[in-house]
């Protein structure tokens, strides 16, 4: 086998994995039974252009993501803070570390430098009436009232076939203003910037910074995520109102139904319609 042929196969495999990872975060097709995203299917696709595989070495000077103060209260600040148009954020321009967490069958990674801590999913969470289903409620942590979100409702497309989440940990970010509920913590990954397939354009998912094929995970841009959380600017978020305080007091291992089924055994609020 020639070297060029081997390189082509490698590129195809890498592209297949990338497509697979991306498909987990893409909208569900309209087919009644969408096919499983099997890599082999993608491998049969036309050969990808090599340009897509080249990690963009130098990106046009994108404004670094600024961690704003009081972002939750300041829409103006949110407007000022620009979304990177492509390439790595500032923290990803050299070797960096990420923490992996499991969410509804998917591994998400958040840069360690942007994390404020990890706490166990508290026994008690205070839901707020009239908020989106992805906002689970408030928990008191030290002197903060942490706003806990069900990240799976945000990053996974509506109608995702992934099973319910059993949040066990809350990953704190944005000066502990926000907490991401997740099923578990996987590992700390040390990544080189060129090991990440940075998104060339943030598009409808500006919070997705890139993907790491080696670890089969998606990297979240925490700053953009916090900004969008504060504005609630989710194009694909479920508009159904949450019924807060259905069961404000939860027990560990409780499940959240992402299909919005609202099973009575779920001790966290679901998106029931009134």
């Amino acid at each position, binding site marked *: 086998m020639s070297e060029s042929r081997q390189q082509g196969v490698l590129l195809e495999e890498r592209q297949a994995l990338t497509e697979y990872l991306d498909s987990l975060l893409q909208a569900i097709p309209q087919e009644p039974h969408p096919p499983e995203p099997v890599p082999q299917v993608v491998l049969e696709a036309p050969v990808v252009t090599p340009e897509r595989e080249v990690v963009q070495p130098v990106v046009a000077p994108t404004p670094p993501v600024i961690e704003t103060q009081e972002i939750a209260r300041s829409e103006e600040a949110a407007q000022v803070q620009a979304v990177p148009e492509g390439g790595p954020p500032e923290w990803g321009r050299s070797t960096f570390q990420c923490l992996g967490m499991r969410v509804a069958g998917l591994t998400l990674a958040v840069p360690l430098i942007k994390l404020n801590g990890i706490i166990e999913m508290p026994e008690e969470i205070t839901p707020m009436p009239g*908020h989106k289903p992805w906002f689970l409620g*408030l928990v008191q942590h030290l002197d903060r009232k942490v706003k806990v979100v069900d990240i799976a409702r945000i990053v996974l497309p509506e109608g995702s076939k992934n099973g319910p989440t059993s949040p066990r940990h809350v990953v704190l970010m944005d000066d502990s203003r926000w907490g991401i509920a997740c099923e578990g913590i996987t590992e700390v990954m040390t990544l080189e910037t060129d090991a990440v397939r940075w998104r060339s354009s943030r598009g409808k998912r500006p919070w997705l910074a890139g993907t790491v094929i080696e670890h089969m995970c998606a990297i979240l841009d925490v700053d953009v995520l916090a900004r969008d959380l*504060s504005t609630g600017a989710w194009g694909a978020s479920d508009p159904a109102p949450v019924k*807060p305080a*259905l069961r404000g007091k939860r027990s560990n291992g409780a499940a959240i139904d992402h299909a919005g089924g609202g099973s009575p055994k779920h001790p966290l609020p679901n998106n029931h319609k009134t």
Partner: protein
Amino acid sequence: MKQEAKASSDRGPTAQYVTFRLAEETYAINVMQVQEVLRVSEIAPVPGAPHYVLGIVNLRGNVVTVIDARRRLGLDPREPDDASRVVIIEVSNQVVGILVDSVAEVIELGAAEIEPAPNVGSDESSKYIQGVASREGELTIVVDLNKLLSEDEWAEMASL
């Protein structure tokens, strides 16, 4: 003594709030808007009323509309029990009652203790949440009764 004074000043101007329970959560409303608290008596349904209106009661000769707080806040409705109370409030020169699971106590909160409600993709129905206060390790949701209903809804209440 100085510490107490400092603590008081840190809290900002204080006000008293009546707390009540709804679906295992604690809510607070300004005591100045509360006229009285009643046990649940016979509530006469009003045909054609909004879904959150339980009906009307006769309060010493005056007709008072009773709102189901659970329905208004988007919670699962439930039948009143012995602990249920109707809190008579005055808002926008109107007297209405709100049915709650139970009334807890009167507390004092400083303005600085009430954090603004999180603005996280909230919809119109959450505008009545003034903020959240932390007390004894638990969070209390402070309700702005003035925003419990819109102007149109208040007008509809008046016409019932």
